[in-house]
């Protein structure tokens, strides 16, 4: 490639024209039926078709011209730059990291701590409802779920497609136990975690002799079973109607967030009534839960059990040859992951005040798994970034009403959520096949801690 740029332009331009025409032909064939022809119903409700040659021409032209430009101008330019760099002998990777890079975690944590007050200051009480609830809490729930699943998929290498089942167990544990027995959130939070962990063990016991694809399919089935039980066991779960009026969490039993109650938070502090205080409180609760998940994960990775999880991901047979009981090791990974799913579930129930089987469909499992994979399996930072991008991105999409100007008034951007989700995944996987953070931090070192490149770590085979 570099040689052809050296020899001169005509060669490159000729090639660019050829490639451009070829791209145009391919685009024409691809879009001929999809774009060039449109079906619609006429007045008599008969299905007829018409052509859209203009739109098709735009598609073909865009493909041809952009291919022409990329081959003719952009690629030679990049190649020349690379060549120049190679000649000057300067390494592209600089050892010195920027201030932001080095202190990223501290900056992120400080930002999260002041985030609710920042939004109160900037957009006021009513405006910050959206920013604290839709963005803050929503993203943090997914961060927690993805960190929980990361223990199972990222560390132990067990592909779990039914993780949302544990989320559902947690949510329904809180919803049912609080509405039937009136237990408080702070009692039921650990209990839902334990119940979810128990279900993790119950599921894990028969399933963990399966490996890889088989394990994935069975966990997927388990997720669906839980959902179908929730739908059909109407006596207890009220089926598709769901359970509503779930009690709010209290401020550790000191103040309540119910407006009518005697010891309400708003009255005690002499504030004007607004639901934003509850949301801010919930924000800090889920932030604390996330921090707990991260802390436990980081600690466990340095414990023998955490190392055994990672060893299991790398090579199960070698694990057994070293005297590691792989069944209990897998079960603890499953149970620990499920426990955090359960915590997140009970938080979800108290935040929504309403749970129904609708919230626990397979798509949720897929989204959580996608966040783990995009972030880089095993990396907490990468997963958090992926959650912000993925969940925050879909929330931002709701705000993009200006797109209606471009695409017409009946364009609803949030309907394109999955399309963008898929596009983002393809782009990330093309450029960063191991996720945002592909490298792995070693858990122990003799002289210096060096990240292990993602090319050495394995994904695990169940």
């Amino acid at each position, binding site marked *: 490639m570099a040689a052809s740029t050296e020899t001169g332009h005509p060669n490159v331009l000729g090639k660019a024209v050829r490639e451009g025409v070829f791209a145009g032909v391919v685009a024409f064939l691809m879009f001929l039926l999809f774009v060039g022809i449109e079906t619609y119903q006429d007045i008599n409700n008969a299905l007829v078709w018409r052509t859209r040659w203009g739109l098709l021409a735009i598609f073909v032209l865009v493909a041809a011209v952009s291919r022409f430009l990329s081959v003719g101008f952009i690629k030679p330019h990049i190649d020349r730059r690379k060549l120049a760099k190679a000649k000057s002998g300067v390494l592209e990777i600089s050892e010195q990291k920027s201030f932001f890079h080095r202190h990223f975690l501290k900056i992120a944590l400080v930002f999260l701590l002041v985030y609710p007050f920042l939004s109160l200051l900037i957009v006021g009480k009513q405006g910050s409802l959206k920013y604290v609830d839709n963005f803050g809490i929503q993203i943090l729930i997914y961060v927690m779920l993805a960190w929980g699943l990361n223990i199972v998929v990222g560390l132990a290498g067990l592909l779990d497609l039914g993780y949302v089942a544990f989320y559902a167990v947690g949510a329904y544990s809180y919803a049912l136990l609080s509405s039937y027995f009136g237990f408080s959130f702070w009692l039921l939070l650990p209990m839902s975690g334990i119940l979810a962990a128990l279900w993790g063990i119950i599921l894990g016991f028969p399933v963990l002799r399966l490996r890889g694809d088989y394990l994935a399919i069975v966990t997927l089935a388990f997720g669906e079973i839980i959902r179908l039980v929730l739908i059909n066991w109407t006596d207890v779960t009220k089926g598709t109607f769901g359970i509503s009026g779930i009690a709010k969490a209290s401020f550790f039993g000191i103040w309540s967030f119910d407006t009518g109650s005697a010891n309400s938070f708003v009255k005690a502090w002499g504030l004007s009534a607004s639901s934003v205080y509850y949301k801010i409180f919930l924000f800090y609760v889920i932030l604390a839960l996330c921090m707990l998940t991260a802390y*436990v994960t980081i*600690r*466990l990775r340095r*414990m*023998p*059990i955490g*190392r*055994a999880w*990672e*060893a299991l*991901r*790398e*090579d199960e*047979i*070698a*694990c*057994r*040859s*070293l*005297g*590691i*009981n*792989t069944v209990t090791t897998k079960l*603890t990974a499953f149970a620990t992951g499920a426990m955090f799913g359960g915590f997140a579930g009970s938080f979800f129930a108290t935040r929504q005040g309403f749970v129904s089987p609708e919230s626990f469909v397979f798509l949720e499992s897929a989204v959580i798994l996608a966040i783990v994979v995009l972030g880089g399996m095993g990396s907490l930072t990468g997963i958090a970034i992926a959650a912000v991008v993925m969940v925050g991105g879909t929330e931002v999409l709701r705000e993009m009403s200006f797109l209606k100007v471009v695409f017409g008034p009946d364009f609803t951007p949030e309907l394109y959520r999955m399309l963008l989700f898929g596009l983002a995944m393809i782009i990330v996987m093309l450029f960063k096949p191991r996720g945002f953070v592909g490298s*792995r931090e*070693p*858990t*122990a*070192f*003799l*002289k*210096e*801690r*060096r990240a*292990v*490149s993602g090319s*050495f*770590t*394995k994904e695990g085979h169940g």
Partner: protein
Amino acid sequence: MALGTTTMTNDTILKVEHLSMKFGGLMAINDLSLEARRGEITALIGPNGAGKTTVFNCITGFYKPTMGMLTLQRKDGKEYLLERLRDFEITKVAGVARTFQNIRLFSGLTVLENLLVAQHNALMKASGYTILGLLGLPAYRKAVDASIEKAKYWLDKADLTDRADDPAGDLPYGAQRRLEIARAMCTNPELLCLDEPAAGLNPRESAALNTLLHQIRDEGVSILLIEHDMSVVMEISDHVVVLEYGQKISDGSPDHVKNDPRVIAAYLGVEDDEVEEVIAEELDGGTR
């Protein structure tokens, strides 16, 4: 086929009696009996497909033998029937560690981490099955320090100290072989089973391996090894067992085995009737 020409002063660590292993219609091992003595290097040799690795997999619990008894006696006199233990228990309880023909390292973990994973059971106990360890009690910290010391000791023996913080997958082939042996040694075994440890090594690496194996034996760990490279076998082993078609054809000191006509026939591929001839000649010659 006299049972060994070496002296019987050492007690037996592993006794394999009437071991048979059938895969469908294939008899991979047929009524095999052998002994490995404590503190010795016992080599298991034979042509390709003779069933050496199958014997190994039976001893280390990766296969359940169709028939036979595998008795392991530990230093404290306790006896374990290996065919009744689960694979991980054979390492954990009976003190048998193994390596693999195709190296099985945790390639994404560092060299040091590989050695720490091998000490899983000891560390698990010290960490109170994770719960006490999460609290960071001093007893656990002491155990962690001890485990790192042990890892350092074996890193030094295997000449890997400089690469302790590199991912195991990044090591050259010979170093990976040594690391796998060091990792197996970190489980505190009494019997170390090595499946072709010298395969693919150059002469210098091979010599380094021999030294390492001698050091391991001098620490009182018995070694059972499969090897193709006859020079390695003859140089380091105290006792050689030869298999062919799942049956033992010779058993004794390296010198004895080297001159055994059946072994020569098996390795050079002589026809069956010729073997009879060779044996007859030997017997006539009055070597026995």
